[in-house]
């Protein structure tokens, strides 16, 4: 009698284990050999396991979804493929790469700065000639010509930067569409289902909001801002300055609110999901070890060991995602930052040479660049912070 009971109990136990696996590990876990796992690069046969897991989660399709420039940058950084050893790059090389990128982007803006300075010099020369009694009449007309030149110098970068900002946001959204499900599934397979689904939901909605914001609202507003600035510079009687400053303040406030809202949402949801996941993990471990009498303990250990191997994949995918996001954003960010610097220097030079038409126009161009940088930063920070949080959780347990 006792033997039959034990047999039936074994059957029930197996069923319970299977149920636990299905319920708490929605994506199939390849619980292979329980090997010793560590976060260092694994030897050969584990390299194969790594690539198997990568293919299963679909992470090897990630490099194709990147835009051209970002893919080139990733390959320069040695992260072109998706293998383990490539993630160990020295910080100095990374910084050198960043400086090279910065120099490449800085060429054009400083050429334009040269042009602006030349125009300002001419204007200052004419100012000297205007010291005579009759000179005052010709100076405003010449000032109008110089303002036109400066307006052309300031709009060109504005138009180009707005366009590349929008393109970058769209590229990043496309990358997110592929990256977020992959990462969420890997995270869920590691035993953090709530965190995975929260990450998925959060980043998708954030990407949606920011994309629609940028294309539907930021681009027209930026165009109108620059046009009104030029009109104001050409005819100072219009007194358009207060209106433009109000517009700029409005945009800045909206961005700050957006960022605060996203951060608050992220914090709340991560707290909730991490508690939920801790409970889930402990519950499943306890169930497995207590429902299966003999091998329960070993089985739960095996499960956590398998989770350890998956954790390597999770780190790899997470780091790849962060690096890819950085590579997508950095070129455009650097370009906008250098234009900001060039236009600010031009405005300062205009003030020093007391060319009074130059300063407001160039300063307006510079603040437009500043707003574009803020939008790019917002998006980049969102992706970085949420991915990093997920990277950090689940490092224990």
């Amino acid at each position, binding site marked *: 009698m006792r033997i039959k009971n034990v047999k039936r109990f074994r059957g029930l136990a197996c069923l319970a284990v299977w149920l636990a696996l299905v319920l708490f590990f929605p994506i199939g876990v390849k619980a292979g050999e329980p090997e010793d796992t560590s976060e260092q690069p694994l030897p050969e046969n584990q390299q194969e396991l790594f690539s198997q897991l990568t293919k299963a989660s679909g992470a090897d399709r990630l490099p194709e979804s990147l835009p051209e420039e970002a893919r080139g940058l990733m390959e320069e950084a040695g992260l072109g493929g998706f293998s383990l050893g490539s993630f160990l790059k020295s910080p100095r090389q990374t910084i050198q790469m960043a400086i090279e990128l910065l120099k490449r982007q800085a060429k054009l803006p400083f050429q334009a700065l040269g042009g602006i300075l030349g125009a300002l010099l*001419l204007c200052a020369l004419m100012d000297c000639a205007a010291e005579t009694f009759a000179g005052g009449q010709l100076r405003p007309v010449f000032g109008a*010509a110089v303002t036109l030149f400066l307006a052309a110098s300031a709009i060109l970068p504005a138009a180009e930067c707005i366009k590349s900002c929008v393109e970058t946001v769209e590229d990043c959204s496309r990358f997110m569409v592929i990256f977020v499900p992959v990462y969420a599934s890997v995270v869920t397979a590691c035993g953090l289902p709530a965190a995975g689904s929260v990450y998925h939901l959060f980043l998708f909605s954030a990407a949606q909001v920011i994309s629609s914001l940028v294309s539907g609202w930021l681009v027209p507003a930026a165009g109108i801002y620059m046009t009104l600035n030029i009109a104001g510079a050409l005819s100072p009687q219009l007194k358009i300055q207060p209106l433009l400053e109000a517009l700029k303040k409005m945009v800045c406030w909206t961005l700050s609110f957006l960022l605060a809202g996203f951060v608050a949402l992220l914090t709340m949801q991560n707290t909730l999901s991490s508690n939920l996941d801790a409970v889930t993990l402990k519950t499943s471990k306890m169930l497995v070890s207590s429902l299966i009498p003999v091998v329960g303990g070993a089985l739960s250990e095996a499960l956590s060991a398998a989770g350890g191997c998956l954790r390597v994949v999770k780190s790899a995918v997470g780091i790849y995602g962060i690096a890819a996001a950085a590579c997508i954003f950095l070129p455009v960010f650097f370009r906008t930052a250098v234009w900001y610097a060039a236009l600010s220097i031009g405005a300062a030079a205009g003030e020093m040479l007391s060319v009074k038409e130059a300063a407001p126009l160039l300063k307006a161009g510079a603040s437009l660049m500043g707003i574009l940088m803020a939008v790019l930063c917002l998006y980049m920070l969102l992706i970085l912070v949420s991915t990093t949080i997920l990277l950090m959780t689940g490092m224990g347990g």
Partner: protein
Amino acid sequence: MNGDIAIGAVVGIGLIAAMMSVLLRQYRPEFALLTALAATILIFTGMSQWLIPAAQRVRELLEQEPELAGSAAILLKAVGVCFITQLACDLCRDAGENAIAARVETAGKAAILLISLPLFEQVLELVMVLLR
């Protein structure tokens, strides 16, 4: 550059010409005007030694932005028009002909506006691109 030597010569010429002009104004005012004109021409010709390289450098600076290269020429032309209009205006005023001076000035303003018309069209085009 002989800028520091030349400026001494310029100052000297200016002062001497002014004295001559004042002297001649009481007897033959037309000669006073001619003296002033001669002094202006001489000073400008002397300045052109160091004006030409300076204008070259400014033109190079202005033409660095590749798409606005044409505008650099326009700006320099505007400066030139400004300069000679100023010259003529001041000479006329010195001779006491305020009306002529004012007409010359108006013509100069019109010329500058006409010259900067392409620049204006370029800016309009860019604004259209921006607003689309």
